[in-house]
């Protein structure tokens, strides 16, 4: 009786998990079916199969440009963030100064003041700084990260002070100390942050949509939205599936390859 109930529960959960994956299964199957078959919803079609939809999607969207812009945006944000969060994280973890706790609380407040919510004023700021309609404008609001500072403060606190004291005795200054002694030791924290940051910005839509108008500066998510609108109008669902995979695929594949890394990073977060 108990064993039966347990089996039933396992089957139910297994079925739910498989149902969860059906949209992905459809994306994979439909993207490989050329033309506009009437049974495009079928998860087990007889064929024929081919890569034609990917070629069509590649040609009808500006995928190379969108990839380039997305990589520049994610890379630019991350590069600046790694510097700002390491510096601030060190200051909060190791240095003593008046108002430290208050200042830290103010930094943490940023976690709630999500840029998406502040679209209206931030657009005005971009215009004033001549950053509107530029990739740099999409990136700028993310250069400081309250969450990253929190993560680095925790990471630095977990490193024994002995290392720094030895380096200090050798006369190292703080920047050199951080670069050559602490940053290498803080690598796990930095990697976790990098995964969270890149995932968040690769997937972001509303802010890049608002901050940029020129098609030549669009990122993948914004491109996908206009691309799918066009393809749906022609009922080219196989092409929609292929285009969606081109946008979502890189992170999905990285996730499947480095699952442990990703999951442990997400556990740190709470903020995507």
């Amino acid at each position, binding site marked *: 009786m108990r064993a039966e109930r347990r089996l039933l529960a396992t089957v139910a959960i297994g079925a739910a998990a498989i149902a969860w994956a059906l949209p992905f299964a459809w994306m994979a199957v439909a993207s490989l079916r050329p033309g506009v078959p009437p049974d495009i919803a079928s998860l087990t079609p007889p064929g024929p199969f081919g890569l034609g939809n990917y070629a069509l999607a590649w040609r009808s969207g500006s995928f190379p440009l969108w990839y380039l812009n997305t990589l520049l945006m994610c890379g630019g944000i991350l590069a600046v963030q790694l510097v700002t969060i390491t510096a601030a994280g060190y200051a909060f973890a190791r240095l003593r100064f008046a108002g430290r706790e208050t200042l830290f609380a103010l930094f943490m407040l940023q976690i709630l003041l999500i840029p*998406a919510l502040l679209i209206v004023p931030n657009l005005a700021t971009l215009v004033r700084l001549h950053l509107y309609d530029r990739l740099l404008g999409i990136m700028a609001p993310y250069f400081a990260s309250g969450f990253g500072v929190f993560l680095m403060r925790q990471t630095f606190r977990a490193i024994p002070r002995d290392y720094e004291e030895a380096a200090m005795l050798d006369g190292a200054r703080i920047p050199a100390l951080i670069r050559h002694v602490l940053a290498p030791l803080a690598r796990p924290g930095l990697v976790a942050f990098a995964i969270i940051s890149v995932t968040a910005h690769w997937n972001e839509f509303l802010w890049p949509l608002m901050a940029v108008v020129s098609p030549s500066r669009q990122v993948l998510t914004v491109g996908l939205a206009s691309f799918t609108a066009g393809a749906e109008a022609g009922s080219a669902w196989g092409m929609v599936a292929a285009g969606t995979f081109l946008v979502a695929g890189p992170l999905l594949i990285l996730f499947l390859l480095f699952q442990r890394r990703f999951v442990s990073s997400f556990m740190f977060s709470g903020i995507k």
Partner: protein
Amino acid sequence: MPRQALAALLLLAPSAAFLLAFSYWPVLYVAVESLTAGRGGADLGNYARLFADPHFAQAVRNNLVYAVGTIAPSVTLALLFALALRDSTRLNAMLRTLLVMPLLIPLVAAAALFSFVLLPGQGLLDWYLARLGIAATNWLGDPDLALGSIIALTVWKNTGYYMLFFIAGLAAVPQELLDAAKIDGARALARFRHVTLPMLGPTFGFVLPIALLNALTQVDHVVTLTQGGPSDSTSLLLYYIYQQAAQNDDPGLAAAATLISVAALLALSLGTFRALDRGIHYAS
């Protein structure tokens, strides 16, 4: 100035500059803008217009339904999945992967997939429902169903994420406590209710604010799938703000609505932290 303070100043300056420009200044800016934009001087006219706007009231109502409608099922399902898949067998690891995958894709990509899943007649859902003899349904075009469809998409996207936190939370429940309860004759359900659930307090304290944040700040699927329609049935607060700013060119309404959202977000997050803080069960 002491040496450490000077060093701290230099190290914090870059972060502080960007925080000021893009997090704190904007809040001040909307506060002022909400009082002055489109007004002769400074008054509460924009707020009066906002509260008189039926579209705003609708967006607030929708957002409440959306928050409850997404958070309750996704947190419950996440907990159930975590309980079922907590042991790291190979099969469980695979099923967990399937559940977490939606987290990795952009919300617009999820929306693109669901635009087909929910397509009337030809789409994935209707195609298979037709085999059960259920007629085609206009999931996104019917004002009574559209918000529910958007909610379903969100639950699909976020549940796996919350599950990860519950799996970690469950691993932290001391086995001795469960064993002790077992010896005292507590049945599985009682053990869950009186031991496991209270011990998961911190996990709830973490997951609920995140879920709230998501319910208030994620509208990409609304922008691409329904544009708030049909007849405002899927308009959410942030979507309303986006509309006022991008389409209606009404900075006064946009600023007033933004300030209210920010205030709501801060109040809700602090409230959740507080409430759970009181309810949290400390092991030590």
